[in-house]
């Protein structure tokens, strides 16, 4: 007979361990690879058509680093910094500094932690978004990756404040990022190469917001149970 309390615990995750974070990074790498063509096509429409190729090259390098990593320490912060540094040195373009900064800044509040709580994840997202904004100087509505990340972070925060489980909060976060991604379609780009198109950038989904949605979706899916 299944104990009710135990089922509750299983479906309502309260924390994420080092190995779970590794699984999330691996899941993101797999999603980037699976969506490489789509990301590249979205970028070809309004940018320079290399986002999928570049991100896939970077995440492949990250997988190589994970395979070779000495994870005795189980330091989640150090892990995310390594991911970020690897992306900075392998992606190039604008995606390298932006995703590199995102992971590195997410790692800062998680330094020395082998297990993180929901509020740690929120702090990580908050730090990551602030880093991306400082690097890219984009504001919400400029048709960039932060148009997915900020709604994702805000939804996570409201869900946690509202007392929802971590699992549910992660789902809300990913869904909000997905909505933010779709909401970039009518926007006129104000940053990056897409901004050269002016009004002609409207009607296309932003590739950076699309990959950022994949990132938060991977967290919700990987940590669902």
């Amino acid at each position, binding site marked *: 007979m299944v104990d009710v309390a135990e089922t509750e615990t299983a479906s309502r995750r309260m924390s994420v361990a080092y190995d779970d974070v590794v699984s999330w990074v691996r899941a993101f790498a797999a999603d980037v690879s699976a969506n490489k063509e789509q990301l*590249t096509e979205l970028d*070809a429409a309004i940018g*320079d*058509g*290399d986002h999928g*190729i*570049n991100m896939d090259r970077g995440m492949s390098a990250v997988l190589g680093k994970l395979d070779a990593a000495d994870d005795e320490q189980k330091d989640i912060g150090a892990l995310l910094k390594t991911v970020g540094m690897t992306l*900075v*040195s*392998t*992606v*190039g*373009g*604008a*995606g*390298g*500094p*932006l995703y*590199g900064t995102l992971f590195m800044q997410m790692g800062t509040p998680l330094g020395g932690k082998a297990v993180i709580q929901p509020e740690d994840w929120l702090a990580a997202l908050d730090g990551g978004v602030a880093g991306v904004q400082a*690097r*890219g100087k984009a504001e919400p509505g400029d048709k960039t990756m932060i148009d997915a990340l900020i709604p994702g972070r805000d939804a996570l925060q409201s869900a946690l404040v509202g007392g929802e489980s971590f699992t549910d909060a992660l789902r809300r976060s990913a869904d909000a990022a997905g909505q933010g991604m779709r909401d970039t379609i009518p926007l*006129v780009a*104000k*940053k*990056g*190469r897409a*901004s*050269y*198109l*002016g009004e*002609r950038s409207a009607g296309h989904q932003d590739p950076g917001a699309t990959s950022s949605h994949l990132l938060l979706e991977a967290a919700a899916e990987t940590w669902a149970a």
Partner: protein
Amino acid sequence: MKKLINKPEDVVTEELQGIAAANADLVRVQFNPNVIIRADAPVQGKVGLVSGGGSGHEPMHGGFVGLGMLDAACPGEVFTSPTPDQMLDATKAVDGGAGVLHIVKNYTGDVMNFDMAAELAGGENIQVEAVVIDDDVAVQDSLYTAGRRGVGATVLAEKICGAAAEEGRSLSDVAELCRKVNANARSMGMALTSCIVPAAGKPTFELGDDEMEIGIGIHGEPGRERMKVEPSAKIVERLATPIIEDLPFEQGDEVLAFVNGMGGTPLIELYIVYNDLRKLLDDRGITITRNLIGPYITSLEMAGCSITLLKLDPELTLLWDAPVKTAGLRWAA
């Protein structure tokens, strides 16, 4: 796709191997991270000049490494910005104690990667200044865009600043000079055909047999207008007029006229463009006192050209005339 390559993924590496083999007297090439470094770097007491950008614009930037021009160039993947670790290695390799100038073309990725590199270099106590080149008048410069793109003025800035660094000028002086070149130069380009990025394998954009794109960027970014192909004189008017009006260039000005080939256009056509440009400038009382004609900042096999005008003064003219010895640009005193 028809290209003289082996495998698309090896294009940059094999190009660099070729450059290393061909130009061993001028440069050494470091792989992973990729940097082309002047053979005698670091030159003690001289400001180091570093530039970089996506590959596919050859001879820029790697072909401009050598005496009187760049000390190092960072080649990215084709049309993709290089990464901060390349730029940091380049900066360290050329720092002769007088600091290092980063010459950055205004593209979002290039600017962010060079920013990160400058932060890293600062952490290693190397003094770095960065100047962003943004001379392309085809793009509106406003709060609502990433700003004008960096194109032809980059080549002129690298030559002129290289000469100034060779004279022993300070980092702040060379940076100021670089800003002066950028402030006095304007460019615009056009395409007759698209380019094909090797990894993509298909044309970046579609253009009809009888069409041209005015205001094209060096990565095949859309321009101002697509229209039927016209005679050279008319095309020159479409490119030169916005350039002249933007600065503005005025009657009595002396200029360096740079007619650049995009990669797929033969010199015979570039000289026709130059001839039309000369006549147009003559009519406006603007005198060409220096010129540069040829493929120097290219866009793979794109056919087309760009025009850059730089308003000259005695200082810029002297520095332009100073000796330079690189694979892409070479003259004696």
